[in-house]
């Protein structure tokens, strides 16, 4: 007898594919008029539009699709849907593609992942013989010592691990986000989901109906004629409701606080994946049920599959799943599978009715199923074994909503506990209970109306009919070994071994064996694992409980999480000029600024000898008005502000209440109750929030109004001995030293532009004016300065020259020369900190800091060999070689012709004139002299002229 003539006989011909495509089926989803070419492991195949990769290969008679994760065992189709652990493929440069869900496209290059040298002759299948090496918990047992070998372990293991190859080049992939505010999100587009969506929409709700598959319908799609009729009716109803937005090939990935629902949407043209962030008033969870595999020896052989898999292949794709079948069934769906197989021309050799204690003991075969061993001691030759042994309710979204599903022994599944569900989450359909399609629709219709009611917050509740799970035998394992987790290659023996080794809770077993931690995330295997733990511990399944179902329900690409690439940047109004003149851009927070225009050292010399202008628009600017501004300044700055005269400018430092330096800048008094505060460029937003915080939470009675004006003004610093000469040509403000002294502020016109603010300050150490002009005129004023000052040799300078100039002057930069632990006295502003004030932010800590007097000091640094610039963050060593500080700023000074720096150093070494050792990153040690902060013009004569 040769029942399986073309697939079973020796040599290579043993696995020679036999076409398995059937004639047309009433519910098929393929378009037979067209064929699409694609390749699998380099060989040419064809598919029809609508075929998944797996269905096309199955139609071509390919049964061996992949190798398993740990033991490299041959695997074929198990579920024939998104979850199928035997059908993960590499498609082009995309790894881990769900091959029983992804539709074939013309020209697709599909390959098996992680097989070497080929799928058929996988060398690593030798792992099956090296079992002890991969014993239960083998990671924990094997890779403990010696620690230095860990990188090697990782390298070797990577070669064995089931994963595709990624390319660092994202290519043309485009990802996106969308924000949505539907009244109702329905998770699951089967009969219950469709009926709930229709009912909610008819009740006036806006509805998002989300379905994982490419079409609505759930199990009706692969059902009988009555199912197909019901499906057509429901689809027509959905299509007739304009209030329903249908998202197919999309999955609700998680439910979070206040019904924030994530949806990964994959069917948008031109978008690889889109993350929809939906804020749903009501969430209806209608995922249906997932068929559960049965655990027995040989249950992972190609040819062993679930009844739903066989029915999908036959009815959706018109593919005959095998030639001669044994069916183990415990429910009506399994019985329907028998009918489908017979209709598809499969010889059904035996039906084992589990309701009458008949069943499978073991499956045998190499590379594919050959014989089935049954409880009545028969050995039946077959290439297909179909099991229908029970259902798992995918309760993830309910768990994430606070529900704790309870085990119902009568129906052999976990069911939701409605009492624990929040007001804005409802469950519909088979996840709640079993019924006819008509009853499911009736139940879901009520749930949909109730969901709409809750979304509207109406008062009269809808009565939802009761739905109960049908009785079902408890069938988990035949007790003959086999695999529990097909993704992670976790066997029944692994579970019992783990329990024997003391891992007696399901959460511990999960982490020790990695059961449920693979791509299917427990949807196929959790309940079986729980049942095996329960059996091994002698506890009941209810006592054992399940592992936690966390988001995400299905994988989301990193691209979808990141969304559309957009990074806002800020430019000053003078940016076009900078670009025309070859400025090298510098990213400074959100701002793009000129770092230099070619030669920063020359820019420094121009400022020291002539005049330069720099675009300082990003400097933070706050307009402060009101009679209580001095109170505010006194509170936020460490120095005193009560007696700042009109027209005067003062420098101030802000600390937080822990005494750590927060920001610095100058504030000028423009009028009786009118001040302009400047902040560091990077601190502009922080200081604004800081000011508002103190005003709103601590002193709401103070009359101060704050307006951020950072970008209302374009800001230019004009610096150098000839800056007065240059600016005087363009302004109506008297710039004479007598009328406009150092640290004063004036308002006036510049280059014909009214309402400019001019302050005379000196960050660079030279005579300089910082002018703030209405932003729309920034470019005009800049160009006027450049053209008017041409005969003076006016030179634009960038951030780098400014950094050198300020370092020559010993001015520290908050965040560069201070850090998150630098309290006020560390920054060297001892003279500024007025501990005799009644209060200011940070006062107590600064008082204690000075009393302790153990803090590091900010000092000037000069390498003895002035040709060496120790890189910033080089360490300063104490006499025993320990770390005593670090270089915080360092540059070659064009003015002095030698290297200079600033650094934080322990108090004991901070004395001026000390020589200390600095260790460079290359390991060399150099000697550095501790100096005052100021390297150039310590008297400050140049800026006061």
């Amino acid at each position: 007898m040769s029942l399986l003539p073309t697939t079973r006989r020796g040599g290579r011909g043993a696995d020679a594919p036999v076409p398995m495509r059937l004639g047309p089926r009433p519910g098929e989803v393929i378009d037979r008029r067209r064929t699409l070419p694609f390749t699998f492991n380099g060989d040419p195949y064809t598919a029809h539009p609508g075929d998944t990769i797996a269905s096309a290969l199955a139609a071509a008679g390919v049964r061996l699709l992949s190798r398993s994760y740990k033991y490299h065992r041959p695997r074929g189709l198990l579920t024939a849907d998104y979850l199928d652990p035997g059908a993960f493929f590499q498609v082009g440069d995309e790894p881990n593609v769900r091959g029983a869900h992804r539709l074939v496209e013309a020209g697709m290059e599909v390959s098996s992942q992680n097989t070497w040298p080929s799928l058929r002759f996988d060398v690593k299948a030798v792992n099956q013989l090296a079992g002890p090496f991969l014993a239960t918990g083998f990671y924990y047992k094997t890779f403990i010592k010696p620690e230095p070998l860990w990188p090697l372990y990782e390298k070797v293991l990577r070669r064995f691990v089931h994963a595709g190859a990624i390319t660092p080049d994202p290519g043309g992939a485009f990802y996106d986000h969308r924000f949505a505010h539907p009244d109702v999100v329905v998770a699951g587009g089967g009969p219950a989901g469709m009926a709930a969506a229709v009912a909610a929409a008819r009740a006036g709700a806006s509805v998002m109906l989300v379905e994982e598959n490419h079409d609505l319908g759930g199990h009706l799609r692969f059902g009988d004629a009555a199912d197909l009729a019901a499906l057509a009716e429901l689809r027509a109803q959905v299509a007739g409701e304009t209030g329903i937005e249908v998202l197919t090939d999309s999955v609700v990935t998680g439910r979070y606080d206040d019904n924030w629902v994530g949806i990964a949407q994959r069917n948008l043209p031109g978008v690889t994946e889109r993350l929809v962030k939906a804020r749903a008033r009501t969430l209806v969870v209608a995922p249906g049920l997932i068929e559960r595999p049965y655990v027995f020896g040989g249950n992972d052989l190609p040819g062993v599959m679930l009844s739903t898999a066989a029915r999908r292949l036959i009815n959706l794709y018109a593919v005959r799943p095998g030639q001669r079948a044994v069916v183990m069934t415990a429910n009506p769906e399994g019985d329907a599978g028998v009918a489908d197989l017979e209709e598809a021309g499969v010889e059904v050799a035996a039906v084992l009715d589990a309701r009458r204690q008949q069943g499978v003991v073991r499956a045998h075969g190499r590379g594919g199923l050959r014989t089935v061993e049954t409880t009545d001691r028969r050995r039946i030759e077959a290439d297909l074994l179909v099991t229908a042994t029970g259902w798992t309710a995918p309760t993830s979204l309910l768990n994430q909503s606070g529900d704790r599903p309870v085990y119902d022994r009568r129906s052999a599944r976990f069911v939701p506990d409605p009492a624990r569900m929040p007001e804005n989450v409802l469950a519909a359909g088979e996840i709640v209970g079993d019924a006819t399609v008509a009853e499911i629709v009736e139940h879901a219709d009520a749930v949909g109306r109730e969901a709409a009611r809750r979304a509207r917050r109406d008062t009269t509740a809808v009565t939802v009919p009761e739905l109960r799970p049908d009785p079902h035998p408890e069938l988990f394992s035949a007790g003959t070994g086999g695999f529990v987790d097909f993704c992670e290659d976790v066997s029944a023996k692994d579970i019992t071994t783990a329990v024997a080794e003391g891992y007696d809770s399901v959460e511990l077993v999960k982490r020790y064996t990695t059961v449920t931690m693979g791509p299917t995330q427990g949807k196929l295997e959790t309940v079986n694992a729980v049942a095996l733990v329960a059996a091994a511990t002698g506890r009941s399944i209810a006592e054992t409980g399940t592992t936690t179902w966390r988001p995400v329900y299905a994988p989301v690409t990193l691209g979808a999480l990141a969304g559309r690439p957009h990074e806002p940047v800020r430019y000053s109004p003078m940016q076009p000029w900078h670009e025309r003149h070859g400025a090298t851009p510098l990213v400074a927070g959100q701002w793009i600024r000129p770092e230099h225009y070619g030669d920063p050292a020359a820019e420094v010399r121009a400022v020291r000898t002539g005049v330069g202008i720099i675009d300082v628009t990003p400097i933070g600017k706050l307009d402060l008005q009101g009679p209580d501004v001095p109170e505010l300044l006194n509170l936020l700055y460490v120095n005193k502000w009560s007696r700042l005269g009109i027209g005067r400018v003062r420098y101030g430092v802000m600390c937080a209440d822990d005494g750590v330096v927060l920001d610095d800048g100058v504030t000028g008094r423009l009028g009786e109750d009118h001040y302009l505060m400047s902040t560091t460029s990077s601190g502009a937003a922080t200081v604004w929030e800081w000011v508002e915080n103190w005003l709103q939470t601590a002193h709401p009675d103070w009359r101060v109004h704050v307006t951020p004006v950072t970008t209302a003004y374009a800001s230019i610093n004009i610096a150098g001995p000839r800056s007065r000469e240059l600016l005087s040509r363009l302004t109506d403000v008297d710039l004479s030293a007598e009328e406009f002294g150092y640290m004063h502020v004036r308002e006036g016109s510049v280059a014909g532009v009214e309402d400019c603010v001019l302050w005379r300050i000196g960050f660079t150490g030279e005579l300089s004016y910082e002018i703030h002009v209405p932003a729309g005129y920034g470019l005009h004023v800049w160009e006027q300065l450049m053209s008017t000052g041409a005969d003076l040799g006016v030179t634009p300078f960038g951030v780098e020259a400014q950094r050198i100039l300020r370092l020559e002057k010993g001015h520290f930069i908050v965040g560069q020369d201070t850090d998150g632990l630098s309290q006020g006295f560390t920054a060297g502003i001892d003279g500024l900190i007025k501990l005799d004030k009644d209060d200011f932010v940070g006062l107590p800590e600064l008082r204690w800091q000075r009393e302790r007097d153990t803090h590091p000091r900010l000092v000037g640094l000069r390498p003895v060999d002035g040709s060496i610039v120790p890189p910033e963050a080089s360490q300063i060593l104490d006499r025993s070689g320990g770390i005593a500080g670090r270089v915080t700023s360092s540059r070659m000074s064009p003015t002095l012709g030698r290297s200079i720096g600033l650094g934080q150093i322990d108090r004991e070494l901070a004395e001026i004139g000390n020589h200390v050792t600095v260790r460079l990153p290359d390991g060399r040690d150099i000697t550095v002299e501790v100096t005052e902060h100021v390297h150039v013009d310590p008297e400050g004569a140049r800026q006061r002229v």
Partner: protein
Amino acid sequence: MMLLPCPWCGPRNATEFRYVGEAGPRPDPASATPEEWRRFLYVHANPCGPVRETWYHRAGCRRYLAVERDTATNEVRSAVDSATGVAR
């Protein structure tokens, strides 16, 4: 992601806000001992249950809000403008 009921803007995503921290009185800087001051700075109750805290509606009205929230459930019992006490 939780919603916060801003008294000015209505229910908004928590990401629009900056969490400032538990609200508590600032000790008198003239008399506070280091221990009291650092308790104020660093030691927070962090209860599993109701807590008074400050949130700043950074991407909205830019007002500081006094919020009473249950950290176990994220239920917001009240949210008022810190300065004016205005509630929705």
